[in-house]
């Protein structure tokens, strides 16, 4: 079982590395988009799968990262990514710290509702201060620079996104396997006992929230040069729930589930959105998934693989 998942990981990685040589422009665009959303999905899963908190407001960190790029470009003339990424991380971590102070006191639905409310508040602020933020029209973003060189869309940007995706995934993997990662899993499973051990449960939740927000901020920073637009819709609940759906779709019980979920979601979206009934299908998919396939695609695949191994042995 372990060999099987390791093998599929390696094959998947090689496929992703070689993809731009065989795939068309639009597919490369979608893959880039999916990888950035996968960073966001992984960080949401850091909360959902590992800490046991479902955030309905992670769009706000995506939006913060995006607007750091847009506003710095518009007002300060900064286009270099080596500056924008730390700034985006700082901004979203700061926002996560403030919002987290209120939200991580709550658990369960209370947490979900509060994050949702804060996300909508951010949306309202960015939509209403239109002199500064361009309101609902958003802000246009030009080609970013990396060490003085422009990173063109297409293949160069694809590999940039890939590098950051691998870095972020590795960092989150290490975090999940570290003593800190084990502690947040303990908080998820039995908060009371962690408290009895003398650990401050709220502190661990808050730190997990900040880390998760910071990683989503990176995704936000890298997302806007790809789409060319920073729009306030990024802050909205529908974006946040989209990310949660990617996590559930892939399977929140496994570390790489959200990555699979993001890929499936982005490609399904690109196929279905031109149709009239995209939201209808999305809603129906959510309901069917939650009722019939609670482990997500990877969870279902794991069950199937285990059955297959049992049969053959």
């Amino acid at each position: 079982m372990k060999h099987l998942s390791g093998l599929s990981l390696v094959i998947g990685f090689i496929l992703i590395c070689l993809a731009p040589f065989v795939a068309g422009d639009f597919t490369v665009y979608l893959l880039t988009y999916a990888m950035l959303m996968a960073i966001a999905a992984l960080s949401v899963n850091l909360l959902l799968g590992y800490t046991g908190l479902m955030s309905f407001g992670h769009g706000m960190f995506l939006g913060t990262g995006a607007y750091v790029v847009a506003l710095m470009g518009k007002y300060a003339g900064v286009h270099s990514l080596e500056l924008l990424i730390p700034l985006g991380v700082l901004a979203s971590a700061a926002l996560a710290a403030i919002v987290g102070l209120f939200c991580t006191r709550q658990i369960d639905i209370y947490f979900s509702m509060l994050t949702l409310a804060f996300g909508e508040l951010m949306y309202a602020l960015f939509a209403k201060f239109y002199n500064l933020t361009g309101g609902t029209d958003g802000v246009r973003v030009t080609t970013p620079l990396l060490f003085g060189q422009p990173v063109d869309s297409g293949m160069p940007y694809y590999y940039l996104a890939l590098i950051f995706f691998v870095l972020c995934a590795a960092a989150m993997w290490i975090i999940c396997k570290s003593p800190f990662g084990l502690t947040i899993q303990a908080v998820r499973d039995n908060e009371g006992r962690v408290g009895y051990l003398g650990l401050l449960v709220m502190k661990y939740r808050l730190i997990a929230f900040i880390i998760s927000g910071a990683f989503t901020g990176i995704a936000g920073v890298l997302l806007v040069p790809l789409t060319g637009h920073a729009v306030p819709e990024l802050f909205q609940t529908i974006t946040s729930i989209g990310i949660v759906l990617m996590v559930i779709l892939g399977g929140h019980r496994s570390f790489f589930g959200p990555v699979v979920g993001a890929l499936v979601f982005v490609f399904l979206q690109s196929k279905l959105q031109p149709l009239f009934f995209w939201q209808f299908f999305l809603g129906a998919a959510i309901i069917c998934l939650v009722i019939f396939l609670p482990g997500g695609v990877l969870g279902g695949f794991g069950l199937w693989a285990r059955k297959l191994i049992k049969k053959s042995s």
Partner: protein
Amino acid sequence: MELVFNIFINGIFYSSILFLMSAGLQIIFGVLNIINFGHAAAYMLGLYICYGIIGLLPADYPALLWMAPIGAAILVGLLGLLFERGILRFMYKRDHVFQILVTFGIVLMVDDIIRFYWGGYSIGVPPLIDSMIEYGNIIYPVYNLIIIGAAAGLAFALWFLFRKTDIGRVIRATSLDEEMTEAMGISVMRVKAFTFLFGSAIAGLAGGLMLPVTGGWPGVGMEYLILSFVVIAMAGLGSVNGALVTALIIGMVNSLGVQYFPKLELAFVFILMALILSIKPSGLFGTHKS
């Protein structure tokens, strides 16, 4: 003087809508232990069904128009029952977060159904009564007063239902202890179904009543739902009395904000919520431990 009165009456009006929305949410949470995102769908359906009924009614009898919001409420209640029996009841044993996702799924579906059936543009109708009350310099539409009256009526009706009737006692018993209630020979399943029907019908009524005031567009339900979330989080989940008090507070804060800091009206509401929740995480009237 007019300014003070305007701020006051607008605040009360806003509170009334918030209460109409959040009362149903609280009742459903109290019994089913589910935060029902589907309330946004119920509100929206109420609004559009009301629009549909008004289109069907003969225009010569204005008094008949009042059938529209009531008919919408009944229909939405029945649709809510369908949703509860068809989908939601399979979720009672699952994690809260998954229950939320399912109720959110239905909002997305209803959004698209409405877009398909009524189109994506916004709709509107004239007020069912277009007369104004005039007193000195103060002019206020009668229709808005009727909505305020409806909210007050609902608050009274709920108090009467929960405190003075057997149905209310059964509902309260179910929300306190399901097993014990079942042991008393009451079908908890039926109580849950009825509660969901009732809660959805209130949201449908709210939508139908609001149609002449705000009009409607796909996605309108979500805006009010998010504010109702603020109300119920601040009040403490499950408390209908708390929802009434909190709706009044938020309505007033919002009305003051709109008057003096129009860009920050929402921010004030959220800062107030953040303050209250950091002092008392369970909300003003809440009892849960966190």
